[in-house]
């Protein structure tokens, strides 16, 4: 596969075309606004947390294929996870995108998120792939809007 087809894998194109959980969540306990000032992308994230576990999560907004697919896949990946588990996954996901490319991604532990390993070859796109995660992080922390700049 070329770097390009590695980046735009079918899973990513599919989630870009038909993002999952692309909606506001009623009774959200947390929400956050993510913004990438460089490209003008923005997304709003809605999370309903009960007993320290993410029960419902959805998002709305505009963005490139990478940021939209990442948000979509993230909502699937963290639903049902505890806050600590979600944060731990964010940390590993970030490492997957920014780590040295000769270290193979542990595909199994990432599930579908492994499709983002191709982003490593495109450093300027890392912030697209992590925007939703930064937004989740700040929404759960109840802090200021996330920005990838």
């Amino acid at each position, binding site marked *: 596969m070329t770097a390009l087809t590695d980046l735009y894998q079918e899973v990513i194109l599919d989630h870009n075309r038909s993002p999952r959980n692309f909606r506001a969540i009623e009774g959200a306990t947390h929400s956050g606004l993510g913004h990438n000032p460089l490209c003008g992308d923005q997304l709003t994230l809605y999370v309903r947390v009960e007993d320290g576990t993410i029960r419902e999560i959805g998002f709305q907004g505009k963005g*490139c294929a990478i940021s939209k697919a990442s948000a979509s896949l993230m909502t699937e990946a963290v639903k049902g996870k505890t806050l600590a588990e979600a944060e731990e996954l964010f940390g590993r996901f970030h490492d997957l995108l920014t780590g040295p490319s000769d270290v193979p991604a542990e595909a199994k532990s990432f599930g579908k998120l492994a499709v983002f390993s191709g982003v490593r070859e495109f450093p300027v796109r890392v912030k697209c792939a992590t925007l939703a995660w930064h937004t989740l992080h700040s929404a759960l922390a109840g802090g200021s809007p996330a920005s990838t700049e």
Partner: protein
Amino acid sequence: MIDITLTPATFDVETVRADFPILSRKVRGRPLVYLDSANTTQKPEAVIRASDRFYRETNANIHRSTYRLSEEATTAYEGAREKVRRFLNAASTREVVFTRGTTEAINLLASSFGQAFVKAGDEVLITGMEHHSNIVPWQLLCERTGARLRVLPIDDRGELVLEDLDALLTERTRILGVVHVSNALGTVNPVKEIVARAHAKGVPVLVDAAQSLPHLGVDVADLGCDFLAFSGHKVYGPTGIGVLWGKEEWLEKLPPYQGGGDMIASVSFEKTTYAELPARLEAGTGNLAGGVALGTALDYVTTIGLERIAAHERALLAHATERLSEVPGLRIVGTAREKAGVVSFVLDDVHPHDVGTILDQEGICIRTGHHCAQPVMARYDLPATARASFGLYNTLEEVDALVDGLRKVREVFGA
């Protein structure tokens, strides 16, 4: 001294391309297709050499030493100022203030003009087509003084709504800032007419010429404007050097922007008196090599000929407009009747960043994003566009490469 092997009667783009060393490099194994000159232009050998030669042969600080080397450096830098004066058709080198670029030029003006002339309740008028650099300095001024920022709107085509201009020029309007050529849409604004209408109401005008000067040239006497700003790096010169030009009678009234060396006549702890123009507005040691190389860049453009450059870029724009319209799902944003070599576009549902990444794989450089003109994007309800922009070295074949690249984008996205 510049090295241009061009005969005056012809514009052979291959000859011109040979002047630009970077154009022979490859990107990802493919020839570089550089379609981002509205962002920054590439540099001809003559400009690179001028900067290099200054450091090798002439480097010393200017205006302050008795030795020969400093005298030569001063002559070179002031010689560049004269080249700028001639290029702008300005009355005097006293009117040519070197800055870091357009942004610093406008910040200087907003700060000094604001201090002298703008008070609470006053109005500053700009247009909906401005680059952030002609919005934010005025916003800061308005926040500081309690003045109000007003905006002349743009229409669906990407032209200024000039019918609204007279009503927006009120007795509280202190200054009008207008972009000559829009970096995001390519629109060429009728600056001369706008200046005349502002002057009829007694309002001075700043023209942002960052995108117009390299491609159309500007004649400040003909435009009639009061201030004009441009950047060296967009006219085939170095980064970190630019110009604020202002009519002498206006610049004389401006308080200093920054204090420091070179801008004073005498300093004591009780009282400092300031230097004459333009030094009064140029504190500290400037970008000397950059200034000298900017002079060379203007020589280069002049030697090739602004009319020939404009004609070449018009041909590129026409070809691009036609070929891009053939790409299914592509929509050009900004369809003003008068345009310079800038084409902004969106492609179906494919985000411009994805377009940019895929084109990059083909060695094609375009700008994607909001082009530092978020209000323009908001006007068209777009988060971003892709933008191809042309310089004197671009070819029709490069436009065709862009079109082929866009077909590839559609393939990747299964469109």
